[in-house]
C-alpha cells in the first residue's frame, strides 16, 4: 500500500468520523454504554437480592470487580451483536439509503480506499463502544461497590490489582468476536443495501448461535459459532488459567473477519451504481 493510498484511506476515515459525530444515534449509544453500568451498579447496591444465576452474580456486593464481569456476561448475550452492528451494519447501506454512492464515488478516492476507510471506521467504532462499556463497568464497580478482592471461578481469592488485570484482559478477549460481528454486519450492509438488515440480522444471527448451544448438534458447527468466543474469558478467571478457548475464539473470529470482508469488498467492487 502506497503513502498516497494510506492518506486516501485516512481521508475516508476522517469523513466517516465526521458523519458519525453528527448522528444522534451514535452519540446516544455511546452515552448508554457509559451510563448503563453505573445504573446497574447502583441498583445492585441498593437492592437486597443479587443475580445469583449469573457468573459472578453472587459476588456482586462483595467485590466491585464482579460488576464488569456480570456486565460482560450479559453483553456477550445481548449487547455486543447490537453495539458492533450499529455502525458496521449501516455504514455502507446508508449510502444506498441516501443515494450518495454516486456522490462519494465520483471524487478522487477509489472503491478500495472507500471500502477500507469505512471498514476501519466501523471496526474503530466497535472497539470504542466495547472500551467505553468496559471502562464504565470497571469504574462503576470500583466506585459504587468498592475495590475488594475477587473470588474467581475456582474459588481462589484474587487480590484487587490482579483482579483488575484479569477483568481488563477478559474485556479485551471479546474484541476479536466483536470485530467478527462487525465484519458480519458490514457484509450484510453491502449485500442487502438495507440498514435494518445490516443491524438486525447480526443480532438475529447472534441469538441463533446462542440458542444452538442448547441444541445437541454437531460439535463441528458449535466450534464455528463466533458467539462461543464471547465466553472464552472464563479461562482467565480460573486457577490455573486456561487459554485454548481464547486462541480458538480468536481464530474463528479472524476467519469471520477475513471471509465477510472479502465477500463485501468483492460485491462493492463489482457493483454498478444505479439511480
Amino acid at each position, binding site marked *: 500500500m502506497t503513502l498516497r493510498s494510506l492518506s486516501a484511506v485516512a481521508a475516508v476515515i476522517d469523513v466517516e468520523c465526521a458523519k458519525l459525530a453528527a448522528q444522534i444515534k451514535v452519540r446516544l449509544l455511546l452515552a448508554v454504554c457509559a451510563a448503563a453500568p453505573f445504573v446497574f451498579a447502583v441498583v445492585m447496591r441498593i437492592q437486597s437480592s443479587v443475580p445469583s444465576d449469573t457468573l459472578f452474580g453472587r459476588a456482586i456486593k462483595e467485590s466491585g470487580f464482579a460488576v464488569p464481569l456480570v456486565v460482560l456476561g450479559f453483553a456477550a448475550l445481548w449487547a455486543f451483536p447490537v453495539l458492533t452492528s450499529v455502525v458496521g451494519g449501516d455504514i455502507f447501506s446508508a449510502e444506498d439509503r441516501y443515494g450518495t454512492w454516486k*456522490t462519494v464515488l465520483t471524487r478522487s478516492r477509489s472503491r478500495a480506499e472507500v471500502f477500507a476507510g469505512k471498514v476501519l471506521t466501523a471496526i474503530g467504532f466497535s472497539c470504542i463502544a466495547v472500551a467505553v462499556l468496559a471502562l464504565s463497568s470497571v469504574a462503576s464497580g470500583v466506585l459504587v461497590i468498592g475495590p475488594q478482592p475477587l473470588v474467581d471461578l475456582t474459588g481462589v481469592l484474587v487480590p484487587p490489582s490482579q483482579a483488575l488485570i484479569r477483568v481488563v484482559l477478559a474485556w479485551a478477549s471479546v474484541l476479536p468476536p466483536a470485530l467478527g460481528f462487525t465484519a458480519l454486519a458490514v457484509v450484510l450492509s453491502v449485500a442487502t443495501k438495507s440498514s435494518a438488515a445490516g443491524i438486525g440480522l447480526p443480532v438475529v444471527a447472534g441469538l441463533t448461535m446462542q440458542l444452538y448451544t442448547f441444541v445437541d448438534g454437531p460439535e463441528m458447527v458449535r466450534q464455528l459459532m463466533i458467539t462461543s468466543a464471547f465466553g472464552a474469558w472464563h479461562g482467565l478467571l480460573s486457577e490455573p488459567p486456561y487459554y485454548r478457548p481464547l486462541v480458538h475464539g480468536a481464530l474463528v473470529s479472524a476467519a469471520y473477519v477475513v471471509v465477510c470482508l472479502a465477500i463485501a469488498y468483492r460485491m462493492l467492487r463489482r457493483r454498478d451504481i444505479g439511480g
Partner: protein
Amino acid sequence: MLDQPALEAAGVSKRYGNREALRGVDLIAHPGQLHGLLGPNGAGKTTLMRVLLGLVRRDAGTVRLLGRDLEAAPGSVADGVAGLVEGPAFYPYLSGRKNLTLLARLDDHDRSRRADCIDDALEQTGLASQAEVAVGAYSAGMRQRLGLAAAVLRSPRLLFLDEPTSALDPAGARDVRAIARRLADEGAAVVLSSHDMSEVEELCSLLTVIHVGRVIFSGTVNELRRRAPAEVHRLRTSDDDAALRLASRRNDMNVVRIADGGLEVSADLEALDSYVIALGRSGVAVRELERRARSLESLFLELTGHGGAAPLSTPAAPDAADRGLESVSMS
C-alpha cells in the same frame, strides 16, 4: 487543429440482463466545447454518463478521460473530471457547507484553500445564503445547485452534467447555463444532457443523439439543422377553405386541416412569411399563428422514432404537434 480530446469513448456497450442499454457508443469531447447529449427516456444517456464516470462497469469499449484510460486508476475518478449525475444526493443531516467540506476532504483539497474553494463554489451556484442549512431542508432545486457546487469544487477540465437544470426554476437554469458556458470558455470540456432541446441548441456546438442505446446522430448543431424538416405552425384564419385553396397552389409548404379546428402549416419561415402575406392580399385574415414544433425538435422526434414513420424531410409528426411544443421534454 483541435486539442487532444478530453473525452474519448469508443464502442462502449453495456447490457443489463437481456436489455442492451448501450450499443457501441462513440463519444468525443474536446476542451473548450459544450457537447450536448440528447435522447428520449431510456435512451441510455444517464447510463453512458455513469459508465464514463466509472459508476457502472461497461461490457465493452474503451474510455479515455483527459488522455488517461479509465482503468488507469480503477474505481476512482481522475483529478480534473467531475460529474453531476441525475438527482444529486447528499447527507441530509449535514449542512450544504459541511457536505462540501467532506467532499473536498475526499478530493484531497489543500486544507488552507478548502474553505475559500467551498465559499467560491457556494457563491457561484447561489447557495451562499443557505450554506448552513441542513440539506434535508433543501428543495430539489437547491440540491441540484449543491450538486453543481460539488462538481465545480473539483475545478473540472472535463465535466459531465446530467440534466443539470431539470429541477431548477428559470433563474436557476440560467445560472447553471452560465456556469457551464464559463467553464467551457475557461477550457473545460462539458458534456451536457438535457430535457430541454432549446437549451442544448443554445449552449452546445456539438450534439450526440442516442436512441435505444445507439448513437443515431453525432455532429454540429448546424449539421443537424441542415437535416431538419420545416417548422410546424398552427394557423387560424377567417376562411380556412380559402387558405387551403391558396396553399394548394404553392409547392413550398404543406397545409392540412386539423381536428381541433384550424390548419397546420409545415414550411420554413420564408415560405410561411410569403404565405401569410398572400393570405392578406386575398382577403383572408390571420387570426392566430402559433409555432407548435421547431425544426430541430421535429427532427429529433423523427430520429428517435417519436415522430411516427415519416421520413426526415417531412413535417413534424402529429404527436410532436399535439404537445404544443415550444421546448420538448425528452427524458
